[in-house]
């Protein structure tokens, strides 16, 4: 989707050219992370809540076949149509067929990362269907002909001046006006006409309840509801992992979701769709697209517990400084880096390496996914499958030789110290990423081994 010929490091490099923007991006996302911290500290039972969320999702993964059928039965009994799609292609075809069968060639969408994953917008456009994304952030990236860079904050990579310019070009607002209140009001007026005119609406699904056949969609803007309640046909796309067993479990997940995402106690709207309103229809498309395969990977199946809050992105030191687009995948950040290699290991071989493995993602995850452990495990799978970059392979084989021989290790250490002291240019040059934006400390006179040999007698005297 986005510059597939470049890897994460190269794309991050481009993002890093604008230092001020990187700083802003970094600080803003950290501020969102802090809002999350403040919200969760207000709940003494937060850790119990996370544990409950994690266990419910474990139960879902172990009984997914049963819950999917239970959901289907109940949804059908509610008068909702249920469709099944093995992959992105089948999902997109189902959407197009539904629209064409009703003679509709315009659709309004609310946020659905699944449709991003399926590249639905491009597919519909190629088939003559006009698509408008109604979430303000998604509307903005659509105007810019880009993709969301964050699953919760789609245009967090854009400055308001750029958004003002986009609105000037596409919606005729005065040039130079980048006031968020003015721009939001403009989008509100513009999209209100869209909502009133469109006969079909597509939404994502946050949670689908097996027990009742209902599904829940969460927004702050009210765009999912504006679309769905004014359209004749409501299409809801969901991945198979969105199932939860019972209605009361929504209590757990709705408490976890938004506190983790933005620090709000709940989204403005948490809408439960159970039956179509009279004269309208609801179609649910249940999509696999690699999820059942991930379910079979013991080391990685936990990634299917994700409720898409984005907390792992907001806290990630790499994401904050490299931007969502550097991940060249529908879902960026730490969770995206363990989901993407499942879909195409070779294409996304760089992503599990775009992490410091600091573990902050795992600490904030509301359903306790072991994100950094999975990133570490993916690295091993990727190297074993021969998808590691050549330079990394060569460097690692040299390292293996040196580290496995005490003599070579001592010689190499000495040579290294001498080089850095007398001919630093050999290592401190633009080809060595370790020197990028940092200076290394002064070289010590001797190694620890040499120091210890010289000083060990003093130590015995001290005792």
């Amino acid at each position: 989707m986005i510059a597939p010929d470049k890897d994460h490091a190269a794309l991050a490099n481009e993002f890093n050219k604008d230092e001020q923007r990187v700083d802003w991006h970094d600080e803003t996302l950290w501020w969102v992370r802090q809002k999350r911290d403040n919200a969760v500290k207000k709940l003494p039972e937060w850790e119990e809540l996370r544990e409950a969320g994690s266990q419910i999702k474990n139960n879902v993964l172990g009984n997914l076949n049963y819950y999917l059928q239970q959901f289907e039965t109940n949804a059908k009994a509610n008068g909702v149509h249920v469709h099944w799609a093995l992959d992105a292609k089948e999902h997109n075809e189902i959407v197009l067929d539904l629209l064409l069968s009703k003679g509709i060639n315009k659709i309004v969408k609310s946020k659905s990362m699944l449709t991003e994953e399926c590249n639905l917008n491009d597919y519909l456009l190629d088939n003559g269907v006009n698509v408008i994304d109604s979430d303000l952030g998604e509307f903005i990236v659509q105007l810019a002909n880009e993709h969301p860079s964050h699953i919760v904050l789609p245009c967090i990579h854009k400055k308001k001046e750029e958004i003002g310019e986009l609105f000037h070009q596409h919606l005729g607002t005065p040039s130079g006006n980048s006031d968020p209140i003015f721009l939001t009001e403009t989008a509100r007026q513009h999209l209100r006409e869209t909502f009133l005119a469109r006969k079909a609406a597509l939404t994502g699904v946050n949670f689908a309840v097996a027990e009742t056949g209902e599904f829940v969609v969460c927004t702050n803007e009210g765009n999912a509801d504006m679309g769905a309640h004014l359209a004749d046909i409501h299409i809801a796309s969901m991945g198979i992992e969105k199932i939860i067993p019972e209605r009361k479990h929504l209590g757990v997940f709705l408490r976890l979701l938004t506190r983790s995402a933005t620090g709000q106690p709940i989204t403005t709207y948490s809408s439960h769709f159970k039956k179509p309103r009279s004269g309208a229809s609801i179609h649910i498309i249940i999509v696999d697209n690699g999820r059942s395969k991930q379910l079979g990977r013991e080391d990685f199946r936990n990634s299917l517990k994700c409720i898409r809050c984005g907390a792992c992105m907001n806290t990630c030191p790499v994401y904050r400084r490299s931007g969502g687009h550097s991940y060249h995948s529908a879902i960026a950040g730490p969770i995206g880096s363990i989901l993407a290699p499942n879909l195409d290991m070779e294409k996304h071989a760089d992503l599990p390496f775009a992490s410091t493995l600091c573990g902050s993602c795992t600490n904030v995850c509301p359903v306790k996914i072991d994100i950094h452990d999975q990133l570490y495990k993916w690295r091993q799978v990727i190297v074993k499958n021969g998808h590691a970059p050549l330079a990394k392979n060569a460097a690692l084989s040299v390292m293996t030789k040196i580290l496995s021989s005490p003599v070579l290790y001592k010689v190499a250490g000495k040579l290294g110290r001498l080089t850095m002291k007398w001919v630093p240019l050999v290592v401190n040059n633009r080809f060595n990423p370790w020197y990028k934006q940092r200076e290394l400390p002064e070289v010590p006179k001797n190694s620890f081994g040499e120091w210890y040999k010289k000083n060990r007698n003093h130590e015995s005297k001290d005792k």
Partner: protein
Amino acid sequence: MSSRDELLKAVAENQPMNFPLPEIEFLDSECIYLAETFINVLTSIGGAVVLIENLMEIETYILEKFKKSDRIVTTIPAIKWMAELIPATSIPPHALSNVDFAIIDTHCAVAENGAVWVTEKGIVNRALPFICQHLAVVVNARDIVSNMHSAYNLIGTDDYGYGTFISGPSKTADIEQSLVLGAHGPRSMTIFLIM
């Protein structure tokens, strides 16, 4: 094999062992200051609370805030003399696109997040609480529960067609994280709280 059967087969083959569902009843917590918490949380997220003793007082609010030409609607028969009553028979949602102020009813509000729970029964038309410019909800203080677990206990197995938690006015912070009230739904949300 149909896609449905193929998908379900792949899931059955790959799913791990069963893991028991946790007990979540322990998460029910008692909160003594329900109304106070509700007011504090809701006002902190951009909502407004007006304390009233009876429904008659809503008229004062309307006269103060709205013009005669504004379209003010309600789903509460008891106040139909001060606002246009939305009929229970289905009307097209588009007919509500010029509503300035809608007053609806609820039987459940949540202290921890300032949300009210409304279903089709209370809003008559699903589009109403979204399409109006300003929204008000009548809440009886004794209908406030502490948290979402208590709320779902109360909702139980209710067979609604559509229901939603609403917490404050519609909003967005998509432009540089600047909070703007009034995204696509109502620009304001007022709770008439009957003490």
